[in-house]
């Protein structure tokens, strides 16, 4: 009996210490955020979300911090869903997402402020040996709904089609489905999470088809033209190539001074003209059209 009371007191003591630590932490973080809102650009920015956008933001943050030594920026992955939910909960300063907040289930888009920092194009890719380089949009849709199951039906070899989809809810898949599937649901098939793995799988699996962001398309895989339109940057700019999306950086309400400075830096020519291009994205400023959250495309005058 005595032992039990002893153990109990120890547990209580330990938890008290833990609670104490927690309090101390939250105190210090709130003080740092209040200092960030003062006039000098300094403070802590935490950025979480889309892995597709992560490399660009990481590089930009690195450069930004050399110029603004008082700002410390942490960039993490986690996925678009994580980014949106964390920024909505106020746990992070900026949430990166491949999709509009409006398109994500469980997110109150009105609370978030959208900052579009880049455009990314995506294209269907196939294994090099299927003997197909062009499909119509309808054929592509029928392949992904499972109506067409052999490459010979679309003019290729006699080889069964292996569908490789992206994870449910991933930004790349959402973009592909809104632009290609026209409201139809894709057949249940293999799913992979990362661009790199998909690229490797498509290059090695006979009959495989999937889709990738332009920056991941190498000579190991065959990118398909759709209705005769080639997947190039020039075609994305004019919306002749329809499968593209924005990379978003969401903040909750108005950003504080440091965050605003960083977001402005992301949109500045310094980043848009060099980093964005280097890493395989397209600059927002080049676009001749714009898309809204309902996937409506309008020309920019």
């Amino acid at each position: 009996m005595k032992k039990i009371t002893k153990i109990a007191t120890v547990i209580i003591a330990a938890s008290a210490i833990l609670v104490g630590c927690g309090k101390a932490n939250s105190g210090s973080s709130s003080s740092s955020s209040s200092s960030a809102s003062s006039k000098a650009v300094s403070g802590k920015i935490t950025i979480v979300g889309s892995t597709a956008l992560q490399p660009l933001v990481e590089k930009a943050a690195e450069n930004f911090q050399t110029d603004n030594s008082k700002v410390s920026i942490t960039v993490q992955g986690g996925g678009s869903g994580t980014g949106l939910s964390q920024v909505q909960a106020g746990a992070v300063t900026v949430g990166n997402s491949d999709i509009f907040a409006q398109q994500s289930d469980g997110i109150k888009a009105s609370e978030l402020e959208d900052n579009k920092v880049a455009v990314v194009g995506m294209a269907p890719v196939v294994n090099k040996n299927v003997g197909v380089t062009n499909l119509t949009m309808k054929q592509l849709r029928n392949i992904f709904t499972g109506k067409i199951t052999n490459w010979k039906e679309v003019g290729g070899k006699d080889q069964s089609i292996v569908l490789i989809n992206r994870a449910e809810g991933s930004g790349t898949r959402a973009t592909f489905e809104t632009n290609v599937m026209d409201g139809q649901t894709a057949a249940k098939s293999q799913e992979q999470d990362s661009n790199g793995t998909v690229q490797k799988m498509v290059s090695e699996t006979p009959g495989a088809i999937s889709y990738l962001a332009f920056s991941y398309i190498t000579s190991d895989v065959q990118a398909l033209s759709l209705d005769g339109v080639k997947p190039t940057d020039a075609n994305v700019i004019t919306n002749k190539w329809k499968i593209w999306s924005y990379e978003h950086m969401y903040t909750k309400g108005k950003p504080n001074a440091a965050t605003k400075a960083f977001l402005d830096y992301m949109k500045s020519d310094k980043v848009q003209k060099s980093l964005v291009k280097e890493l395989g994205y397209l600059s927002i400023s080049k676009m001749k059209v714009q898309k809204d959250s309902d996937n409506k495309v309008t020309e920019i005058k």
Partner: protein
Amino acid sequence: MDPIKNKIQSTSKETRQDIIGKILSYSCIALIVIVVLSIFAFVASKGLATFIVNKASISDFLFGTNWNPIATDKAGNPLLGALPMITGSFGVTILAVIFAAPFAIGTALYMTEVASKKGEKLLQSVIELLVGIPSVVYGFIGLSVVVPFVRIHFGGSGYGILSGAFVLFVMVLPTVTSMTVDSLRAVPRYYKEASLALGATKWQTIYKVLLRSATSGILTAIIFGMARAFGEALAVQMVIGNAAIMPKGLLAPASTLTSVLTMGIGNTVMGTVGNNALWSLALMLLLMSLIFNIIVRFIGRKGRM
């Protein structure tokens, strides 16, 4: 005051050391207990929300075959049939252990009974090396070697339970082997000596005495291997194909609890049905590892009798 009485009655330096030591170790234990309990509480509260908040039925979850958390059926209930993943997880686990057990027992017997000291040391370090290889490396080897191998020699696209089992086979081998070695070493020396003195051959001794008396230890090793295989995520995810459909065979794409979990968790929003459903899968994994632990305890107790 009598100085001697004073010295005896006051706490000495050593006693104080004793107390400090006790407090230190108790608080470490308490911390670990709190961490374990809070993990359980957290996963349970999230995982049960699927059934309490989102009103999914538990039997649909356990026996339904349609997994599509972002869609709902005609009655408005989310489609959360986890049976494909449960089948996939058990499929790869059991198959991997069936492959691994004979090899592990053979290797262990060689190490304890046949090999010279040098050979034993060499094998030991080889096995330890296998433990140290990160699972992403196993996954990549699986993707580049095992998947094409299965595709060419067995058919299908190469992605499926069989490939997953092959990769896991290598991953659980060291665990099962080293634990089997331990249990074989724990067999009292006089058992073996008595058997040999009775005129039994080496093989008879191994088969009738050593393996029989080490059975509970070997079973424990196998269960631990299963627990390891059940919880492995990354390597399996890369070779199994991740299709949340009932596996149509060993060569068709399937999925496991872990692979669906790791793929989906970053793409869902906290608090939504999709996210809660993933936590339910996590709860399942946690309960399974608890069950594996209980089985190990049970075997251990039986073996002692």
